[in-house]
């Protein structure tokens, strides 16, 4: 049977050996991390953003690289998923973007500070995290089961292909909605429909009424009232005009030749 001395040797020896291995691996990691994390891209803005991230304990609700609390969303890929314009508007007034939902502290950051935070998150999003966060393995299967009802009308004229005006980006629309194949990452499965064929479902006036105050038309909608936050009244009209202009049947003859509705 083991003596006390042998047990002591097992403890001290084992600890020394494994701590030694751990130290060697730590040194190796320390040397490799700068390459894996693109440390050359850590600008002063990224560092300033990191300080803001820490001094406000953002980790106390959010997770970053999967680390933090679990009260608010994981932010590693947030710049890629939502877009910088969306984030700028969101950070200025978080409650406005998610009315009646879980609250974020309203920080009075300057525009420069917001840019720093976004620069930091953008750098984080490009770090090689060994595959994290994984693509949801069941997402495709779920989408194959059918798109949410009322999201896409499958028949009707095929929308025109046109360049997307800047207002859709600055107005944060493409944070949730897909337009001409762009954006839509954040809204894919919460029922934010692609907007290319919205003319099939709504008239110009209905679109204006909807954007001006979504909750008035549909009280349980997840779409925030963006007028006064991300867009102006004039821009609402600009958006509505552009969306109905995608209808090939009412498009001006000078527009690109409208392809005929193709049978599916």
């Amino acid at each position, binding site marked *: 049977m083991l003596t006390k001395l042998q047990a002591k040797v097992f403890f001290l020896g084992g600890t020394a050996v494994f701590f030694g291995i751990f130290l060697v691996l730590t040194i190796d990691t320390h040397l490799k991390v700068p390459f894996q994390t693109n440390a050359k891209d*850590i600008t002063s803005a990224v560092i300033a953003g990191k300080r803001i991230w820490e001094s406000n304990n953002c980790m106390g609700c959010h997770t970053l690289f999967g680390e933090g609390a679990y009260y608010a969303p994981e932010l590693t890929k947030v710049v890629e998923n939502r877009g910088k314009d969306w984030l700028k508007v969101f950070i200025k007034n978080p409650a406005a973007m998610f009315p009646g939902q879980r609250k974020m502290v309203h920080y009075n950051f300057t525009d420069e500070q917001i840019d720093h935070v976004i620069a930091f998150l953008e750098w984080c999003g490009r770090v090689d*995290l060994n595959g994290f966060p994984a693509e949801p393995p069941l997402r495709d299967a779920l989408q194959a089961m059918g798109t949410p009802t009322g999201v896409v009308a499958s028949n009707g004229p095929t929308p025109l292909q046109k360049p997307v005006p800047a207002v859709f980006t600055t107005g944060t629309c493409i944070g949730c909605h897909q337009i001409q194949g762009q954006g839509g990452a954040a809204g894919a499965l919460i029922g934010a429909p692609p907007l290319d064929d919205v003319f099939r479902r709504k008239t110009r006036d209905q679109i204006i009424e909807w954007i001006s105050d979504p909750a008035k038309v549909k009280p349980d909608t997840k779409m925030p009232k963006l007028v006064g936050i991300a867009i102006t009244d004039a821009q609402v009209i600009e958006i509505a005009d552009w969306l109905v202009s995608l209808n090939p049947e009412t498009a001006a003859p000078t527009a690109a030749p409208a392809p005929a509705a193709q049978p599916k």
Partner: protein
Amino acid sequence: MKFQSQKIAYWFFAAAMLLLVLQVVYGFIMGFARIGMDGLHGWIPFNTARAVHTNLLVVWLLLGFMGSAYFIIPEEADRELMWPKLAWVQLISFLVVGVIAIVGYHFNYWEGRKFLEIPRPLDYLVVINVLAFLANIGLTIWNGKRYTTTAIVLYFGLLAAALLYLPGMIDFDNQTLDSFYRWWVVHLWVEGVWELIMGALLCYLLIKLTGVDREVVEKWLYIIVGLTFLSGILGTGHHYYYIGAPRYWLMIGGIFSALEPLAFLGMAIYALSMAKKGGRRHPNKAALNWTLGSAIMSFVGAGFLGFAHTLPQVNMYTHGTLVTAMHGHMAFWGAYAMINLAMIAYVLPILTGRKLWDNAASSYAFWLSNIGMVAMTGAFAVAGITQVNLERRMGLDFLAVQKEIEIHFVGLILAACLFFLGICLYIYNFWRHGLPTDEAAQSDVRAAEDLPTVS
């Protein structure tokens, strides 16, 4: 109580109890926020409540460890504490620093690094404080009449815990390196040197409560803490899978953290077999319950539930979800909260001379808090697994998923009420013991526990 200076332990324990209550209160604030009742958001937003909740945990556990050391070390070294007054200064200054930190969190004054939120200037005060503590018990051991394995392991654990606090104070511009060294503190504390402290306390309690020969108990202590470091040091790798560290950590972290439950299993078997060997002859049933309970619950919470999501293939989807909260709650409760409560239950009758060690309140305290914690862990588990499936595997939106799992937090709050009732009963029993007295040394409390040694 053999030495007058051991009385200081009482005040460390009393402070720990106070902070434990406060910790639970902040836990309730978060639980209610999760079911939409966030009326306190303007004053105590979630990140404040969260930082207070986890920091109070760390502070009260450390107070418990320090109190335990101030009780055990004089006895093991067979002499009075080196500087009893310094222990008082150390307790009060530790509390002052803690209170400043906690209050600061309500005014956005913190470092914002998970578990190490204490702002940098206060970090230095913590270091000075802990140095004073280590010097005090270190010199007591050095000048003592005897050296015991229990005292040495306990001291080594506390010293290593202090040293490992330092890597967390290095500044990095790179978030990955920041996180990498933050885990040196957090992981090597809770899955490394704190287990040493826990092992030493467990060892001390088993010697006292079962009457098994010291040589036998201490021999196995070495084996247990040996297993802890064998698996736990490289097991740190399970925090390095997905933070931007090299890929080899997936393999190393996976293998060694999968071995970590063995150390906890060893601890549980160790405690149970010693209790069986010695028989349950000691009158302090409450202390024995908490001691064995700690060994078992730490295996379930830290070992088994930790293993449940430590493999990289699983962790890819559970990393950063409520599954972590499930594991965390029972692990801390079983391993560190219960061992402290065991020490307190054992020490109080000795310090005060009152034999309140086997009554209804102490028994209900044990069972209600444990059943409550098991139920809380269950609620976190259901919420966490649902979150993993909906958000990580199906790709649903974060907030939409949170809405779906809200109901499980109603369950969590109900379970937490049961848990809190148990804690309140424990503290009621604490209060009934009254204050430590000089006469306690002459009382027959110790005589009652002089068990014939079993080898």
